[in-house]
């Protein structure tokens, strides 16, 4: 079984939990919009947001940049789009994709953001789509719990916490400058 299939299966489980538990049932996700929105079904994109197994690659402020991974899930019957993200230790946060040509992988901002299909998921993985944290203002150390906020095209936002893990991969070159330039 390949990892994508494993994660997809996990996402389906997360979705069924979401369906049973109402909005933002995923334990890692907080529909920030819930606080002031009535609890009508799928009132906002954030209400249908979930994330499974999120994590952040450890990095120092000197490294300057790092990335957020995990499986984004959409528990609603309508496609949702993440248009931006933010993190308190990153002055700049971008939504990235990785384009591979031959042996070279380059990451760049993804046009139109992250589209999460209705009732489906979007894997954020090293070598694929990810949330890029740039211009880091402090170290993100292994074992830290760190909070990431995502914003949807309807203006709603959701946040989730993710553990920081040491990771040797996810070193793609950034089209807008060399990897690691962000903090220098």
């Amino acid at each position, binding site marked *: 079984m390949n990892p994508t299939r494993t994660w997809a299966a996990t996402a389906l489980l997360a979705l069924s939990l979401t369906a049973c538990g109402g909005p933002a049932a995923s334990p890692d996700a907080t529909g920030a919009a819930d606080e002031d929105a009535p609890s009508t079904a799928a009132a906002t994109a954030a209400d249908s947001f979930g994330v499974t197994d999120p994590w952040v690659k450890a990095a120092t402020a000197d490294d300057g940049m790092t990335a957020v991974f995990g499986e984004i899930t959409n528990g609603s019957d309508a496609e949702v789009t993440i248009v931006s993200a933010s993190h308190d230790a990153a002055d700049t946060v971008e939504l990235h994709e990785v384009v591979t040509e031959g042996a070279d992988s380059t990451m760049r901002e993804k046009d139109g953001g992250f589209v999460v299909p209705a009732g489906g998921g979007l894997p954020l993985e090293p070598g694929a789509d990810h949330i890029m944290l740039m211009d880091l203002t402090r170290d993100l150390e*292994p074992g830290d719990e760190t909070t990431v906020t995502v914003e949807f095209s309807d203006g709603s936002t959701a946040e989730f916490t993710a*553990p920081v*893990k*040491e990771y040797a991969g996810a070193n793609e070159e950034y089209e807008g400058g060399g990897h690691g330039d962000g903090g220098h």
Partner: protein
Amino acid sequence: MPERGAGAGPLSRRRLILGGAAGLGAAGIAGAAAATWAGRSEGGPDPAADPPLHGSRTVPFHGPHQAGVETPPQAHGTFVALDLGPEVDVEGVRRLMRLLSDDAARLARGEPALADTEPELAEVPARLTTTFGFGRGLVERVDPGAVPDWLEPLPEFGHDRLDAAWGEADLLVQVCADDPLTVSHAVRMLLKDARAFTRPRWTQSGFRRAHGSQPDGTTMRNLMGQVDGTVNPEPGTADFEHLVWGGGGPAWLEGGTGLVIRRIATHLDTWDELDRPAREAVIGRRLDSGAPLTGASEHDEVDLAAVDATGLTVVPAFAHVRRAVTGDPEERIFRRAYNYDMRGTGGEEAGLLFAAFQADPVRQFVPIQRSLDELDLLNEWVTAVGSAVFAVPPGCEEGGYVGQSLLEG
């Protein structure tokens, strides 16, 4: 420790029945059931009638006690000892144990760890357990007032030839499974997450018979050919509860225990010089069945008073089984050892990774070892070359981590 099949394939009635039998740990029953079903299957072999693969079996990580103590010993075990970096503070230890506990919980379920670069290697849990032990250095760094009295190097015994390279460390990780590739992957994953906090001190890997080679519950044999571990408290009994989980230490260790790991080199070349009667006299047990020299089967109680026709005791004064019993029922331990051998590029070292769990090593293990040290003839062929003591914290619940009671107590 409860076990269940991870249920990889489509569920069928046959599979459920067979899975249930295997879950009871009764290989014989599973085999019989498989034969019955095979006999009934129409048109050739039915894959669903095969006994479930043991690679899918899991042991839960979460629970009041850590797994890997009561768990029937898996075929392979690796012990990794780590020292904390000088800069790691209490918060650092907390972050470390959160990461390692999460890895251990996921891998035990047969799932990849978070950020696992070889997720396919995690798909065969094979009863993987990860057990953490805290050395004195770790507990002191967190809270000097929380160190159990017994958490210190054992007193030196006359026959020991200890090499500090196999000695005390801050953190012990015991990884066991019925598949050596599973153990290797789990160890590597855990070490990757420990790297930012620790440096490796030593690693010792050992083995028993492969899973399925013999009926479950068969007492292991060591490389000297002896049945090793016959008299052992039975997990799940009040006796075990008292001797292993009995507490009496600091509150954070309630539900935990103590671990003694000794690397015991065996001198197989000189052991080879002994004929079987002499070998049996050294231990006080028969080599074939493991039965005491005064009995007929392995689990017969040793009769230390029995004398032969000449009036001499059947079990000699120097015999290991005689010396290993002090007469005080409190002075007993739970053994969970593995064999090891190293040949490498020349020379040979073989022996036993002696792992013993007991609530208080000083009160329970030390008197036994003193008695063995004084007289046991087996000392001629075995030498402890490594020794370390760890406090094994209680288990944790889902969402928690091992060591929480110390680190947040």
